[in-house]
């Protein structure tokens, strides 16, 4: 069942690089990451690649396979024809460090800019009471393995470095939605979603949902409801009036 597969892997670093062709053994039942590992062990011992669990649970081995953002450990070789060239390139939205490894620090920066969970001040540990139906909405978003494929595919930042400062990307807008829907979170999330994290940039093309390996409905369940909450408040006549009066008083 073994055959010689044709691979084209991007090799290089921040200075530049290009696609390099390899012929490498492929065995029955393997995934792209197995073949990349065989390349390392036999022909390219210094090929840089990030990976960890190899079971789709840690979100480390993100790359673009024939142009599609995917986890290499969940991409089976039998989805390709034996004579098909498999092209593996690093995620395009983030700066390349080396070969398939990119600098994803943008994501960690954005994570830091979202104020942490804020429980009610007088609630003691052990006294938290929440209903299953109420935690389920946020639980869906907490399935996120932080592979950053949604960030990679999002056109707002994919070829627009200039938007990175004002846009946090689907992963972190979803994190804000998660906190906003947390039954016990006491902080105001809606204003910051729009003003600090660029929720308005999102025009719900659902590309993020399509590439999510955890099948989280990012657009439908996090981003759209968050947009609705922002709009509800912004155009709520009573809130509007309240803001006017307060501003006048000040």
């Amino acid at each position, binding site marked *: 069942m073994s055959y010689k597969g044709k691979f084209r892997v991007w090799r290089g670093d921040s200075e530049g690089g290009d696609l390099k062709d390899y012929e490498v053994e492929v065995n029955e*039942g393997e995934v792209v990451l197995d073949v990349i590992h065989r390349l390392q062990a036999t022909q390219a011992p210094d090929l840089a690649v990030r990976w960890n669990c190899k079971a789709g649970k*840690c979100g480390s081995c993100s790359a673009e396979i024939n142009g599609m953002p995917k986890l290499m*450990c969940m991409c*089976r070789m039998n989805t390709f024809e034996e004579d098909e060239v498999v092209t593996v390139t690093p995620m395009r939205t983030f700066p390349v460090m080396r070969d398939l490894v990119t600098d994803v620090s943008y994501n960690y920066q954005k994570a830091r800019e979202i104020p942490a*969970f804020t429980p009610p001040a007088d609630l003691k*540990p052990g006294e938290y009471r929440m209903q299953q139906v109420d935690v389920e909405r946020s639980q869906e978003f*907490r399935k996120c393995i*932080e592979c950053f494929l949604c960030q990679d595919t999002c056109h707002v930042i994919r070829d627009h470095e200039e938007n990175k400062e004002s846009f946090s990307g689907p992963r972190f807008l979803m994190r804000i939605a998660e906190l906003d829907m947390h039954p016990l979170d006491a902080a105001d999330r809606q204003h910051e979603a729009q003003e600090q994290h660029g929720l308005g940039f999102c025009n719900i093309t659902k590309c993020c949902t399509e590439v999510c390996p955890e099948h989280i409905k990012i657009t439908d369940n996090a981003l759209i409801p968050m947009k609705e909450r922002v709009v509800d408040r912004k155009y709520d006549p009573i809130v509007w009036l309240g803001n006017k009066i307060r501003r006048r008083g000040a």
Partner: protein
Amino acid sequence: MTELERHSYDVVVIGAGGAGLRAAIEAREQGKRTAIVCKSLFGKAHTVMAEGGCAAAMGNANSNDNWQVHYRDTMRGGKFLNNWRMAELHAQEAPDRVWELETYGALFDRTPDGRISQRNFGGHTYPRLAHVGDRTGLELIRTLQQKIVSLQQEDFQATGDYEANLKVYAECTVTELLKDGDAISGAFGYWRESGRFILFDAPAVVLATGGVGKSFKVTSNSWEYTGDGHALAMRAGATLINMEFIQFHPTGMVWPPSVKGILVTESVRGDGGVLKNSEGKRFMFEYVPDVFRAQYAETEDEADRWYKDPDNNRRPPELLPRDEVARAINSEVKAGRGTPHGGVFLDVSTRLPAEEITRRLPSMHHQFKELADVDITAEPMEVGPTCHYVMGGVEVDPDTAQSVVPGLFAAGEVAGGMHGSNRLGGNSLSDLLVFGRRAGMGAATYVDQLGSERPKIAEADIDAAAAEALAPFELEGGENPYTIHTELQQSMNDLVGIIRKEEEMERALAKLAEYRGRIAKMTVEGHRQFNPGWHLALDLRNMLTVSECVAKAALQRQESRGGHTRDDFPGMNADWRKLLLVCSLDTDGGVNVVRKDQIPMRDDLLELFELDELKKYLTEEELPAT
């Protein structure tokens, strides 16, 4: 003089899984400047792989549960070899540690009255595991990660710098601990990206590096599990205990090769799945040991009735303890009755309707569908034992988590003693939280006691550590580290695996001696920037040291207990229960194993057990006077 970047901290935590993050949170909250150093990106540690849950006697699902019951279950699970003080602290403190996670933002599954739901698991008397579906580990690590971020936000408010008091050094590997006299003075390592060296000047180091599974061919562990903390501790003069005890989970995937070793949850059997050999026979009925004979069904009919009527029927033998099932599968395969890919069949497709399977076992259905092209609602799975967890680790003081080396602490899987000879499912996540916090506290207290008398780093030690790290680049024409690693894994799997024999372990030790020579002469190609060959070469030294500990300790222990099965000594022996095997390094880098008496259990803890039960484990002299 070696060129490197230098940083000064009060506490350096190595490892960013559950134990490391919890330790760092504690040290920072105690006012200590803390660094976390980890081999992967922040948030990717092996803790994400934990599925079942976190054991804590909160009594939400059954109000009869309390720490004493949890303590008893843990000691029984470890066949009484556990460090009883650790098991006591663990059972007492686990509920507070879980409730604390809710204040950090964790969202566990709920009971109907809104509290944290708890599930049943092997060896636990009552439903005890706090969980989030089958992704509890991910919830735990993300929650701790977000707590770290919130502490950094506090520091930002106060100082304008997120990283003023707590910084994560991700994709950075520590290769050596440094000492001033007897005490820890710092840690030396390199950035995986650039290969540049980095030095941490710190009087306290917490090891939280996890396990050693990558020394075995078939494992559920990731590449990070190369025994780094175990080996670093030994090179710094600390001791390891219980290294002969390795948990092999009976059901790992065996096909396709890419996922060999990945876990198949115990719930498959709990929900009715049965094990069959290539002849279609439910072989587990042949493997019920005498001590369990009374509790397990003798016919398939009786076993099948148990699922609906557990009060009037005995349990199916598929639900024997993990070590028994793993050994049975091993025997069937060795006898030539295995599947085409060297496992046995685990079949749930003929036992439950398809929709029931997808409802009860969604992640297993998804895992087999996506990775093996197997529809578990229509066909059997192929499974076999997989190396899962090391019970052994750094010998520590139970209350402070400090090793015998002043300033060196250890928590989580890298620490030894808590689980004795066998860990119960669910006790790992709670272990991380309880002892992660204690290690952070222990380190902070230690730093306070030092005052201004901080150990100093010697320049010569830095140069030596740098030379050691660069050694694989120095030679030419030597072997590729991947080849040696593959052979080491095969040897450990075949010769010090699930069933052990004196003659095979002797052979393993001879092999390990041979690898030692080859590792000293291996070569690495390319340069220092993100070079996986070099990284493996450095990790390989650690795997070799740890493998020697496992093989030498296993050869000495002449009994079978928990995660250590001797073909030539099949029974449990109370005289051996009293003994710990303590591993240390001698001056030429070889592993020494010495015997040490266990500290007798405190009387009030002993009184938690019936005399008849104690008689199964303790020697005549150890039993309480009646």
